[in-house]
């Protein structure tokens, strides 16, 4: 079983890499486009995949990954299962702030097929923050892209004084305020 390692490669100059994991490739594509549209000093590499582990044959040309975003479609049980399975292939060092869960489709509660508590519990188990969004809506997609870029800047160490771990600790505290753990 191959694992995606956090520190096996040197960082590249003035660039950051984000990995989007999710089963809905349309959403991934749209989100990636939205991220690239944002004006940045940083060169952003976006890698898309439907599951982990990543194929080994092209590992040598892949840059170091700074942030893994797991996209959970709340309307599809399959996406949730895939992500649960993919999580097993992630190096523990990533969970020090370089992982986040993006839950989409929260706008239509009536069509939910994944329990919201299950998502929150999963995120809690892996000590990672959850973002809620609706990727079908363009405005929310842009806002989400901006949030992800901000997180990516922190995770790739481009913001002096803030580390991924301290940032994720802040985010986690926010999530813990919700009452689901009671």
């Amino acid at each position, binding site marked *: 079983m191959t694992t995606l390692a956090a520190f096996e490669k040197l960082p590249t100059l003035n660039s950051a890499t984000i990995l989007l994991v999710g089963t809905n490739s349309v959403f991934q594509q749209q989100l990636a486009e939205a991220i690239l549209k944002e004006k940045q000093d940083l060169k952003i590499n976006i890698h898309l995949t439907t599951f982990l582990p990543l194929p080994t044959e092209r590992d040598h040309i892949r840059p170091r990954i700074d942030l893994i975003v797991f996209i959970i479609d709340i309307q599809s049980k399959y996406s949730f299962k895939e992500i649960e399975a993919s999580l097993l292939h992630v190096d523990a060092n990533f969970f020090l702030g370089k992982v986040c869960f993006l839950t989409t489709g929260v706008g239509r509660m009536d069509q939910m097929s994944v329990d919201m508590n299950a998502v929150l519990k999963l995120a809690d188990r892996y*000590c990672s923050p959850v973002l809620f969004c609706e990727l079908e809506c363009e405005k929310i997609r842009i806002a989400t892209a901006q949030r992800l870029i901000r997180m990516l800047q922190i995770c790739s160490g481009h913001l002096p004084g803030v580390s991924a771990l301290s940032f994720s600790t802040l985010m986690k505290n926010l999530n813990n305020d919700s009452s689901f753990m009671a």
Partner: protein
Amino acid sequence: MSPTITSPLTSSDDAKEQLIEECEEMWRVIEECQNKLALQETETLPDSDPKLPLLMKRLKTQTAEFNQWQKKEPGVITTNPEVLVTLGRDQLQKLDQELEMVLSSVQARNKNLKQNLLREQQWLEEHQRLIDDLNQIEEELSNEIVNLSEKRVFQELETKTLTVTACKDKMLTALGEFLEEHFPIPEKCETTRKKRRSEPEVQLTTLHEILENLIEKHVIAPHDPYITINASFWPPYVELLLRYGTALRHPEDPDRIRLENFDN
């Protein structure tokens, strides 16, 4: 002036070289760190409950980070004054640009606010004028209402008087007609007899006229309402008035009669 900046070209070249050297030194440190990190084996989390080991790991890392921050001393990126001056100028220029942007945006907002203020003031003025106008109209209307009510009362009274007068006239004519019809002057029926006996030198008064005289006297001189019976009064009519209780004879003078007192 520091002695290093004698010739700008050489000094800037020197500065560049120095910077590159420093950068490479840093990169060497990073590579060293990376090598140490690469030795570390990738660590997979247990499938069942990753939370506890993960939390322990986070605690360790965070403690290490904390210690690092405690030990770390703020350092200057480079000691080369040329580089520092350029960097400082760059940052100042950037700041200047940003401040100019802020200024222009604030000015734009100010302008916008001024326009809004003007518009609001115009609205206010218009509303004030509207209120004034409305107040004036209200005042006029209330005055008119007073006038109207007085006028109306007058009109009503007038119409009432008119109807009453009309009614009275109608009644009078009706009474007059009745009297004329049922109590005519007894000339025609008696012409033959009267012509023979005695020529009536006086024109006889109608019952209507007698009654009118009686009423007039009664109204004009209530202290002495009697009228004297003269030759123009046809005796049967006088008798009729007395018999039916319309007129009364004077208790002492049989030639004078008055209207019965209908007041009670």
